[in-house]
């Protein structure tokens, strides 16, 4: 840093230090924020300048907290950044009225860059926090959306809801196969009633899951194929081969019962007659 720039910078630092009260008051007005919050920030800024080695760790930590609390309070990230940038305006006004305007002007560029950095940092914190929330939610969604339910002794079902992509199908496949191992179930039903659309890729994923289950020694039925989906699959020319497909989960369950040799019948006394007796 040249000697001239150094003195200019010192001049600004001196300005900041001597007019602390005035600056915070004006800043709070421009930024529309509480002066306690800002004075804390201001003091951290002064402290980091004091040490002279540009150690911004403290003030960054404070800014991160501020950004987070303001985001939670419903402020847009640009509002927070604008609040930080407000300090520039205050210092510019102050430097203009200063006797040594020429000397201070050189330091203003340095100061402006410093404040820009800090303002952008609040933005970064905001996006980081957002990103984390989105990631967490995506993970939760993945876990929530793939339950394997036991239908009967030796029969499990996977009700799929939502669009299938490679990542989800992988999770579904692993979960289903692991359940087959854990429970020793020999029959599985994949229900796609909740899948809005089936393209070649989704069909491919389904086929892979069925074949993998077969390799492990379990039979797999696909159910819940709506008329439009049947139409699409045939139009696309996807071959399901010898894989059993059924229109509804009930049909699939009935088929599986037959295959497993389970007989289910109506009780002799029907529901209606029991109700009539009770009345």
């Amino acid at each position, binding site marked *: 840093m040249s000697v001239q720039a150094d003195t200019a910078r010192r001049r600004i630092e001196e300005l900041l230090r001597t007019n602390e009260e005035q600056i915070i008051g004006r800043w709070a007005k421009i930024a529309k924020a509480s002066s306690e919050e800002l004075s804390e920030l201001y003091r951290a800024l002064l402290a980091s300048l004091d040490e002279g080695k540009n150690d911004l760790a403290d003030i960054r930590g404070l800014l991160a907290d501020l950004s987070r609390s303001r985001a939670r309070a419903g402020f847009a990230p640009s509002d927070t950044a604008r609040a930080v940038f407000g300090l520039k305006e205050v210092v510019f006004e102050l430097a203009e009225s200063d006797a040594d305007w020429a000397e201070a002007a050189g330091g203003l560029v340095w100061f402006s860059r410093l404040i820009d950095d800090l303002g952008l940092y609040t933005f970064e914190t905001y996006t980081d926090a957002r990103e984390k929330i989105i990631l967490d939610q995506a993970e939760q969604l993945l876990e929530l959306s793939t339950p394997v339910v036991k239908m009967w002794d030796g029969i499990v079902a996977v009700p799929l809801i939502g669009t299938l992509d490679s990542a989800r199908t992988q999770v579904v*496949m*692993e979960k289903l*196969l*692991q359940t*087959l*191992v854990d429970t*020793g179930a*020999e029959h599985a039903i994949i229900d796609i009633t909740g899948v809005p659309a089936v393209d070649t890729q989704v069909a491919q994923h389904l086929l*892979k899951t069925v*074949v*993998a*289950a*077969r*390799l*492990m*020694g*379990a039979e797999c039925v696909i159910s819940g194929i709506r008329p439009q989906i049947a139409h699409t699959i045939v139009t696309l020319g996807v071959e399901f081969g010898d894989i059993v497909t059924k229109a509804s989960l009930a049909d699939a369950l009935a088929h599986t019962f037959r295959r497993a040799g389970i007989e289910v019948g109506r009780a002799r006394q029907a529901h209606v007659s029991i109700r009539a007796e009770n009345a």
Partner: protein
Amino acid sequence: MQRVPVLKLGDVLIVSIQIDLEDQSVLALQEDLADAVVDHGARGVIIDITAVEIVDSFIGRMLATIAGMCRMLDAQTVVVGMRPAVAITLVELGLSLGGVRTALNLEKGVALLDHIRSATP
């Protein structure tokens, strides 16, 4: 080279693979098994791969080859105890092992063989 033992139980042969398979041991197993099927007049072969954690296309083909060979010798082959990860790998490799029967575990494999035999006297 480690050899995989072939065990006889009634007229069923049981092969339990407990080692990391090398190509040489796979080839030896195919020969041993074919010999054993003929020697004992076995009607069924069960290959237990519960302990197999890693498969490649060679092992996948080995299973299909053994099944085909045993069918020629009038013995049914059942592969039992495949792990989920192994099943997924085989599917991704494009091997669906058509013609090979599978069961979740040894017990169910034996039951399956019994069932097949009672259906085709």
